[in-house]
């Protein structure tokens, strides 16, 4: 394939990878300024996994009770187990109200109070009812509304494209290369500015709430490009995953008053977080749940507990939580009005990701050196807003707010900078990936390798971790990476080659999973979602710092020189709920 083929060569001011909340919000901002903005997505935009978010979007509107920006800030800091950067949180809470009102003005059908204002519900770790919601389909309506606005403002969409390499040279972003999933073939996107908004990396686990698409492609691309990742060992396990399926039952259920009970029908959270009970943050609730299961108090001694909604009554369940009701009914044949719903912790949210500053510019070291023209926002980024544990409803707010901020800074950057020249032979890396899978002689298949990775990650890198298990996991990853070299695909056709895409995604999963395990092994403490049975205490003296990780000469190199931004008034304290 030649670069000169015009059809496959696009020159666009701002190229945004990912069509979730962060990507679409950024694209909208750029497009409204009159510059050209293109969104590249593996799926049709409305299929993005932001749509899976259910419970709400956080903002201290104080519509149903007193609230303040300071309270939102403190709750987020404490929720993060003090690993979040407080300058980022300050910017976040200051922009949050604007983000919600802007969504409302765009047409989001928020649920309403009796007097017609945006309704709000309680959520874990938040000290006031702060979750602005639309029933339990909040992410869905935000995503669709943003998509509609993007259509209105003529954002260009390249649907069903898989990005295979970033074009970077001398710390300047120049664009990227992507595979056209539908028709086959490589495309060059030459851009002034690029945003990576590719979402989370939860598909490395077997039991996960994440979509098939959430294979951490953005973090893997960055690692491939020789840039670091930050705090990858911090992965949130959501306490109310639907048993066996792992799909999400929103925390909104508990926000509306649902209980979690063990085999003895005890609300066991009283032992773990007496004040907040079921509305403690997710890391706390998931640990409690896993402890109950490990100590034999799962239902019938098995690996699940119950989410009990029955006392909420039929009307509240169907009005406020209709999706949860349908999911339990369709997938487990459980009628939540009459029966408790089996649940288990499920890999849910990636706190770690691509390091960036408050302007969403990607950085390449602990000193904050910027890669010019490269930005990141949403779950794939690590600013770090969520630190060691994210609070529910802060993710939609994060994606939308920092999506907008990314759009503003990308617009500025595009106005001040031309198109940096493409590197020589821009297609080589991407072409190499395809060729190896198509023309290799190996007999390995991607599916069993992925299955082995996911099963082992769920067993060893879950709610509780320890050195022995993690060392075994590292050995498994090394072996699977070796086997991956011999993977070829059955399907050699150009059109919609799912086989090829899954094999490419597996390469990404194997790549960043090694970083997760190395980071978790090195961090000999327990903080937020990262809990080590062999080091059960938080250790601020040694570990109040971020993890940066590079792949250099095939090995993961770690660096802990990046400190945490802490304001004098929010010094670390013991975290109790």
């Amino acid at each position, binding site marked *: 394939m030649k670069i000169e083929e015009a059809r496959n060569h696009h020159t666009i001011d701002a190229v945004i990878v990912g069509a979730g909340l962060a990507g679409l919000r950024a694209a909208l901002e750029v497009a409204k300024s009159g510059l050209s903005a293109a969104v590249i997505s593996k*799926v*049709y935009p409305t299929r993005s996994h932001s749509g899976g978010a259910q419970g709400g979007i956080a903002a201290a509107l104080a519509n149903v009770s007193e609230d303040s920006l300071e309270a939102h800030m403190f709750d987020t800091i404490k929720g993060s187990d003090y690993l979040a950067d407080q300058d980022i949180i300050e910017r976040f809470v200051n922009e949050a109200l604007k983000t919600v009102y802007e969504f409302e003005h765009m047409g989001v059908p928020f*649920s309403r109070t009796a007097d017609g204002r945006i309704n709000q519900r309680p959520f874990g770790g938040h000290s006031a009812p702060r979750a602005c919601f639309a029933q339990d389909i909040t992410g869905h309506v935000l995503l669709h509304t943003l998509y509609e606005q993007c259509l209105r403002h003529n954002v260009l969409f390249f649907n069903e494209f898989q990005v295979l390499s970033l074009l970077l040279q001398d710390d300047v972003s120049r664009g990227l290369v992507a595979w056209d999933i539908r028709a086959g073939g490589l495309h060059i996107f030459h851009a002034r500015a690029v945003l990576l908004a590719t979402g989370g990396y939860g598909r490395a686990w077997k039991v996960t709430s994440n979509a098939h698409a959430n294979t951490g492609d953005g973090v893997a691309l960055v690692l491939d490009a020789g840039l670091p990742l930050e705090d990858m060992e911090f992965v949130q396990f959501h306490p109310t995953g639907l048993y066996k399926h792992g799909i999400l039952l929103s925390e909104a259920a508990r926000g509306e008053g649902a209980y979690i009970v063990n085999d003895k029908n005890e609300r066991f959270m009283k032992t773990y977080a007496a004040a907040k009970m079921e509305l403690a943050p997710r890391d706390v609730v998931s640990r409690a749940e896993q402890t109950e299961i490990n100590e034999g108090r799962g239902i019938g001694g098995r690996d699940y507990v119950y989410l009990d909604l029955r006392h909420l009554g039929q009307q509240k369940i169907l009005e406020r939580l209709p999706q949860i009701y349908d999911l339990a009914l369709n997938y487990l044949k459980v009628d939540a009005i009459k029966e408790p719903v089996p649940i288990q912790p499920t890999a849910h949210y990636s706190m770690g990701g691509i390091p960036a500053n408050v302007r969403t510019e990607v950085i390449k070291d602990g000193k904050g050196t910027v890669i010019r023209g490269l930005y990141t926002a949403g779950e794939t980024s690590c600013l770090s807003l969520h630190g060691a544990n994210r609070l529910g409803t802060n993710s939609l707010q994060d994606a939308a707010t920092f999506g907008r901020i990314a759009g503003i800074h990308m617009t500025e950057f595009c106005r001040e900078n031309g198109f940096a020249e493409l590197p020589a032979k821009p297609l080589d890396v991407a072409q190499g990936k395809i060729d190896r899978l198509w023309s290799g002689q190996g007999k390995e298949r991607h*599916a069993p390798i992925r299955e082995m990775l996911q099963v082992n990650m769920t067993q060893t890198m879950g709610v509780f971790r320890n050195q022995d298990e993690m060392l075994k996991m590292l050995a498994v990853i090394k072996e699977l990476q070796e086997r991956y070299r011999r993977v070829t*695909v059955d399907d050699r056709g150009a059109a919609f080659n799912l086989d090829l895409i899954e094999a490419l995604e597996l390469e990404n999963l194997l790549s960043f999973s090694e970083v997760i395990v190395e980071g978790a092994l090195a961090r000999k403490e327990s903080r937020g979602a990262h809990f080590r049975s062999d080091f059960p205490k938080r250790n601020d003296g040694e570990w109040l710092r971020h993890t940066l990780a590079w792949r250099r000469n095939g090995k993961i190199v770690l660096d802990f020189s990046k400190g945490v931004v802490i304001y004098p008034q929010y010094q670390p304290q013991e975290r109790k709920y």
Partner: protein
Amino acid sequence: MAMIDIRVKILRYQPGQDAKPRWQVFAVKVEDESTILDVLNEIHWQHDGTLAYRRSCRSSICGSCAMKVNGRNVLACETPIHRFGTKLKIEPLSGFEIIKDLVVDLDPFFEKLKRIKPYLIVDRPMPDKEFVQSPQQLEQIGESTLCILCAACSAACPSSWPNSDYLGPAALLKAYRFVFDSRDDGADDRLEIVNDKNGVWRCHTIFNCMEACPKKIKITEYLSRLKLKVVENSL
């Protein structure tokens, strides 16, 4: 939970290789609690890597995996196989061009959305905070905002099959969603757009869309209200 043997007949089409779509039968062993998506994954991962289909969220919210199973349009991810027994017949959605196997070209479907101005139009100055909208006003549009754009409705609509210019149920539902939103000022425009032989009047209240909708949205009812609004507006 038990393992059962099932027979799955899938309509396959590989462009450049097949002159026209052809049936292929797979005999597979799966858990009796499997969904249609689990079955497709099993076939794709264990039997034939060349099978193509769309899926993402697994929780019936992204709308990727609408397809036809034993004559019914369903979301593969939320549909248990026991609904159909041990013999499955799986085909792509009707009325769209097949890209490969179960993957159809939905670009025309999304293009139709654009025709009805699918976004809130506000001619007044924006308020400092939110617009006031009562729960009763929200109720008018609440159910219609559940639409996941999976295209199951349009693919089930006999009025859509012979006429690719017809807006179809999903785009018309979206028009309803904005026309009946108390915050919107764009109703006149949209009502004019749908007041057309390829707009609301092509809907013959056949109810197929409603029966196909995985979100159980009362589409036909909303389209009827939209027709009424068109008439009121032109009087």
